[in-house]
């Protein structure tokens, strides 16, 4: 009985700690709030059923992201998402932003949504997940140098888009 309540307590802690990041990750992965919600719900259902296999609490976030990515691949990757305006998809958390920074952030959102998944996903893992290049490589099953290239390209594309006419003016340095 107490192990059941320990399990429940442990699980509830995971949900409170990681559901927000997981939802954001899922939303940027599939560009659809309803699918993102389903994905996160299903991820935690699977996590609940397999909680005994999580031995170290510090590995929990990576474990949950792995479940979510597999679930996404299993369920949603076969569906080709319709091309939608990101403004219709993303409910922005705009607290504390000036109108100028809001405009820049909105433009950035459009560009992030347009990034090919192979560039977008490492960026999400780094910025939302807080992972190092080594950890991202492990999570995605690619080499560290591939991750570094993808992260470089992702930022490069975003900066180029921001500095284009209509975007924020700024310098983009071409690096070899």
């Amino acid at each position, binding site marked *: 009985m107490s192990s059941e309540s320990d399990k429940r307590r442990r*699980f509830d802690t995971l949900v409170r700690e990681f*559901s927000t990041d997981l939802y*954001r990750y899922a939303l940027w992965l599939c560009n659809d709030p309803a699918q993102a919600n*389903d994905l996160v*719900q299903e991820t935690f*259902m699977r996590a609940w059923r397999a909680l005994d296999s999580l031995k170290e609490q510090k590995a929990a976030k990576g474990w949950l992201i792995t479940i979510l990515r597999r679930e996404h691949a299993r369920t949603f990757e076969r569906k080709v998402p319709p091309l939608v305006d990101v403004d219709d998809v993303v*409910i922005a958390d705009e607290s504390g932003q000036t109108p100028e920074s809001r405009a820049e*952030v909105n433009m950035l959102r459009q560009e992030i949504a347009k990034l090919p998944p192979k560039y977008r996903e490492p960026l999400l893992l780094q910025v939302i997940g807080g992972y190092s290049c080594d950890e991202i490589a492990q999570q995605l099953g690619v080499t560290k140098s591939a991750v*570094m290239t993808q992260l470089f390209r992702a930022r490069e594309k975003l900066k180029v888009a921001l500095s284009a006419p209509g975007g924020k003016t700024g310098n983009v340095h071409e690096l070899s």
Partner: protein
Amino acid sequence: MNYLEFKRQLMVDPYSKDQDFLDAKGRDAEFAEAADEADAFEQSLQDALTVEVPPGLAEQIMLRTSIEEGLRDQPQVAQQKVVRPMWPQALAAGIFAAAVTAGVMSWQHATSAGGPGSMETFVVDHWQHHGDATLQQASTEFSSAQELRQVLASVGVEATEEFLRQIRYGANCPTPKGKGAHLVLNTEHGPITLFYAPKVESGTSRMSIDDVVAILVEMQSGSAALVGEEKDEDSMRKIGDMINENLRPMSTNT
């Protein structure tokens, strides 16, 4: 680390804790300017990725696992319920008859109203035939806001946005007088079932059906019943008190 390497690091991993990289940030004005520019970009990136999360997401997840856990234990409870010798004559007549008789007897104790075609009879009958199965379905299947609006519109009502978010599952069901709605609501303690019958009149009352309780509420049009475990009666009463404000007849000018 030279300037070119530093710039590449800013593009690849500006969050790196590598000491060479951290030292380079303040090396001279050129390095510092590049670092500031990268910091500003990263801040915008973080702001862009920080999207609003649906309210109550964590609670919904915890509720869903609680329901699954509860349903896993339910067959044992059901078995105990059938074997328990509370109504010997009904047992002799068969398990199905026992369940129906028990339900009808217990609500007749609670209220003198009822009879064929009444809200009370409908609630007992519908709960015993569809209550558990619908809860089980609601543990794995969510209705979208659009689906819920359609179900509600088909019985002539609309829900406030807040109440709509509380509904996890909804479907139409037959009532003694036409179409009704069978909803499952999220509460902090567990799922609660709501039946709405737009053309069946009823007063406000409480009744027991086997191991659950039902609170009947008079609506502006027809009546509703909240069904849940006895421990959730307070939550049910709170929902019942607000139900006429949260579930209103559709405006006719739309």
